[in-house]
């Protein structure tokens, strides 16, 4: 019984924090936000060298063979510093191939994802479908032992940077299929949309009659619903880890502001009207951590608990980060409204993160169902 991180994990946290503080402080994040790709290719290579891109991939494919608890440590720090780039997308693409693919598929794609030469992402939903495996649309047509797929996937993270798509679709009267589609496929169009949070890029992926051979299908054709669910849960867990880091950073920034800013003769943190919302933000952060760490542990060790523990974590985190985003800005007062102060960067992240991989309405509904109501 030990609900804490081990020494290696604490070391990982320190080294990630040090690296990001030095290499990508918020000034750098702001700079990168102005660039077309939104991230630094140079830092991306460094992440690969440090072994963080392949953190959860098996060693034989160039990874470090760590688990989701380790990944949570990495992503908390990434969230804290608002580090931009296709990291989560690539990690999830790796998880898809590692968990759903054959040895041959793993050998083909995982080393590239681990060494940074490949950028992966998931393309699961069209613009109208509800979140969840049932929302995956019928964009495929069975042709031989493969498919021809046509459709438009929405909210695809890092769509213009990715060169490897894990595409979810179904043929009429069939279950979900997950397939790997490379970006150099003809009749593939990736379009980045203007987003609310410049540190998170996404857009639409359009495929027009793209042929998917049997060798590109992860698992059995039409039988990908379980894998899709597993990936959505992993996405929600990853997103929650990033939320924790960001929410804690915003709380810390605001606590510091409340100590420094003097009004009516006192630091504003002296007033309960400021003190109490900050105490609540702290409580929210503690709860998010407890729920997210347990969810990560269950991904590694207790598959039967993944759905419930992930939905509790992401449901609560979606709500709590929204609250903390507002609290941060409100307690900053007018300066919170300016481009200059950092709290707005976290507010934007909170707006981005709430619907990512399911908002609280989706996840609390799922918790209720799993809880027997």
């Amino acid at each position, binding site marked *: 019984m030990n609900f804490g991180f081990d020494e290696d994990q604490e070391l990982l946290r320190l080294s990630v924090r040090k690296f990001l503080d030095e290499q990508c402080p918020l000034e750098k994040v702001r700079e990168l936000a102005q660039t077309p790709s939104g991230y630094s290719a140079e830092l991306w290579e460094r992440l690969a060298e440090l072994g963080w891109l392949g953190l959860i991939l098996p060693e034989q494919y160039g990874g470090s063979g760590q688990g989701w608890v380790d990944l949570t440590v990495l992503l908390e720090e990434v969230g804290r510093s608002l580090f931009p780039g296709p990291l989560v997308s690539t990690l999830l693409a790796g998880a898809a191939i590692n968990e759903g693919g054959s040895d041959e598929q793993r050998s083909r794609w995982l080393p590239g994802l681990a060494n940074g030469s490949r950028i992966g992402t998931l393309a699961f939903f069209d*613009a109208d479908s509800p979140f969840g495996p049932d929302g995956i649309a019928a964009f495929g047509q069975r042709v031989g032992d493969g498919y021809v797929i046509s459709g438009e996937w929405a909210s695809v993270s890092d769509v213009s940077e990715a060169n490897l798509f894990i595409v979810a679709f179904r043929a009429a009267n069939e279950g979900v299929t997950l397939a790997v589609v490379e970006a150099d496929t003809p009749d593939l169009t990736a379009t980045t949309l203007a987003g609310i949070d410049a540190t998170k890029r996404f857009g639409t992926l359009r495929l027009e009659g793209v042929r998917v051979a049997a060798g590109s299908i992860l698992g059995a054709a039409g039988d990908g619903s379980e894998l899709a669910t597993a990936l959505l849960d992993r996405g929600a867990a990853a997103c929650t880890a990033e939320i924790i880091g960001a929410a804690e950073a915003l709380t810390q920034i605001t606590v510091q502001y409340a100590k420094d*800013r003097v009004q*009516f003769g006192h630091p504003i943190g002296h007033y309960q009207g400021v003190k109490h919302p900050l105490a609540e933000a702290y409580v929210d952060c503690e709860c998010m951590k407890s729920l997210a760490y347990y969810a990560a542990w269950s991904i590694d060790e207790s598959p039967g608990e993944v759905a419930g523990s992930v939905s509790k974590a992401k449901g609560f985190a979606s709500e709590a980060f929204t609250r903390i985003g507002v609290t941060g800005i409100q307690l900053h007062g007018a300066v*919170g*409204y300016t*481009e*200059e102060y950092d709290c*707005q960067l976290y507010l934007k992240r909170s707006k981005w993160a709430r619907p990512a991989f399911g*908002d609280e309405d989706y996840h609390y509904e799922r918790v209720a169902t799993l809880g027997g109501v």
Partner: protein
Amino acid sequence: MDFNFSKQDEKFRTEVRAFIDQNNPAGRPEDRSPKDIQAWNQKLAEKRWIGFSWPREDGGGGGSVIEQFILKEEMSKAHTPALGSDFMGLAWVGPALIRHGTAAQKDRFLPDLLNGRSVWCTGYSEPDIGSDLAGLQTKAVLDEGSGGSHYVVNGQKIWTTAAHVAKWIFMLVRTTSESESRYGGITCLLIPMDSPGIEVQPIKSLVGYHSFNQVFFNDVRVPVENRLGAEGEGWKVVMGALANERSGISESTGMERQLEDLKELARNSKKNGRPALEDPAVRRELGRYESMISAMRLNGLRNLTKQLQGSPPSTETSVNKFLRGQLEIPMADFSMSLLGTAAQETGPWQTNSLTFHGVVIGGGSPNIQRNIIAERILGLPKD
């Protein structure tokens, strides 16, 4: 109790509606050209509906409280352009000039205000004082060398809306630091923005919009005839203008419009794969907003009634200011929740959900409103 208007007032309403039918620029509000708006304001000025609440002898319309209410309500409902182009000048400078200005000052400034030739900004906030306006530090010293004909102003203002386009600033300075009250020793000056020594720096908002500024004053020379009211009376001059705020009817019609937009969004949204309007929680939430917005409107009418019966405008307006914050924050979050993953894209709802707090804070933060209500209305001890 009577929510009907007198025949006289109903006649006025008909006149307003007819005017709107004839003069409201065609097309959507966002498509209006500066020329359209200029034409609109010229027509309004002919009617004396700009400065409608001001006395006729000062060039205003002499409208009754009820007529002002009707005018604002109809304009707001019809989504017309604003009443006059110089928002700050009409809201603050005109009323203060009327109460405290010399005949020469009135002659000099009021006609321009009414005819849309002026652009004023106002300088109250300073970087280190936040909500505590009376703590201002910008100094004006009478220049003995010039025989006392000029003040020399040094200091800095912040959150100055439109300072980058304004021709004049209406501002508070400290003329003496020795005073019995924190509110004494404050003086009101009217300063041309092209005076040597004034520098304007933009403040960019978190969505990249520029309306706020910092304004720096470095040995700015201001003739004493540009002082409004007596030296040391500046607090009274400005607060009198502030009390000029009336029923806040445009505030609640504004919220009504936001609610209409939100309903339209809900009609076109889904929640967990089903139409959002089939979700009872969505429906109830819309019902709650509608009830609270009705309460705001009716709170305004109750205040208006008190004013008609002769009570001065009071801290009661804090109630609606507070409610506005209580509504705008959850309504913005609610709109984002309806959008689902589309909330991650840019768009008017998203911008609104990032900037509501600018609006909320603009009227004094919710905590300030809570303090005003608790201390001034309920009589609880000051913190």
